[in-house]
């Protein structure tokens, strides 16, 4: 279920994926960019640390998450493994 807050998380990712100027600002000062959105502390942390597993469990759409993961330096198999690890950890 997508809540109001998840919308803001996904909006950050959409902007980062589609706007080079936002990416540049994010690289220089991620806290300043994230402060522009109504995020919970947990969401802000997950975005700032590129915690793709956590973002996946929150319900972020994979087509928003995968490009963000790639730009954050995660290789494709490592991205998929991070999602699987997060799911496994949630089950235990």
């Amino acid at each position, binding site marked *: 279920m997508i809540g109001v807050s998840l919308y803001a998380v996904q909006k950050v990712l*959409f902007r980062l*994926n*589609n706007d080079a100027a936002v990416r540049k600002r994010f690289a220089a000062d991620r806290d300043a960019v994230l402060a522009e959105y109504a995020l919970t502390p947990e969401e802000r942390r997950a975005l700032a640390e590129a915690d793709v597993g956590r973002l996946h469990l929150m319900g972020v759409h994979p*087509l*928003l*998450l995968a490009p963000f993961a790639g730009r954050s330096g995660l290789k494709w198999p490592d991205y*998929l493994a991070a999602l699987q690890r997060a799911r496994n950890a949630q089950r235990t």
Partner: protein
Amino acid sequence: MPLAFAAAAVHAPGITGRPQNATEQQRNAFFPAYRRLRERLEAARLDALVMVSAEHFTNFFMNNMPAFCFGLAEGFPGPSEDEPFLKIPKTTVPGAARLARALATAVSEEVDISHSEELVLDHGFMVPLHLLTPDMRLPIVPIVVNCLAAPRPALKRCYALGRSLRRAIDARAERVGLLACGGLSHWPAVPESGKINVEWDRAFLEDFLAHRLDALTRYTEEEIERDAGPGGHEVRAWIVVSAATEGARGEMLCFEPIPAYAITGAIVAMAV
């Protein structure tokens, strides 16, 4: 002039980005079939190609998500993805602006659509174009369908769009083709990526070829998600073409499950 060409084919990024990851047998089934489709497209001597593909967060977000969006511009930049990912050089594909505006006007009599002069083309359009018109000179009318964020257009509305598009195309003087670009079952960018529900794909294509409206539009959103994955919602593009070619015989040029591309390599040409 009646619709001069109609087909449906998959558009997965791996097809151009990482072709070598498929087995030799799979490649030998898939790429020659795409070449045969290209020969048919060239033989049709089209003035323009209407392309129906899925939104992938390239143009739209949940702040304003159109069900159907017609691209009315004189040209469309693409691909939006980096060149190393798709192995397709950045270019501008010419738009058939006059035709697009006429089709959008005619279809608006029957189906609510939106339109844009700023569409960017992602792999959904660019992978088929790269294989079918690599010189990127055939003018296109891109139509983006929300196959992404619920609520999506109901499958029956996609059928209605297809029928309406056909009437609009047939009334034009230009030689116009129609191509659906999209996957059947697939699970993009999640750990299940590479999983394919071959039986689901086969059953859908049988109904597609027979233009069985009730069967094609019977799936609930939950059934598609469960059996065909989050990517399965892209069957909307196929449904548009099935509706636009009602009564026409279809020929399956390829049906080859290719896990490395995360899809069944499905390519169908309609005898219109």
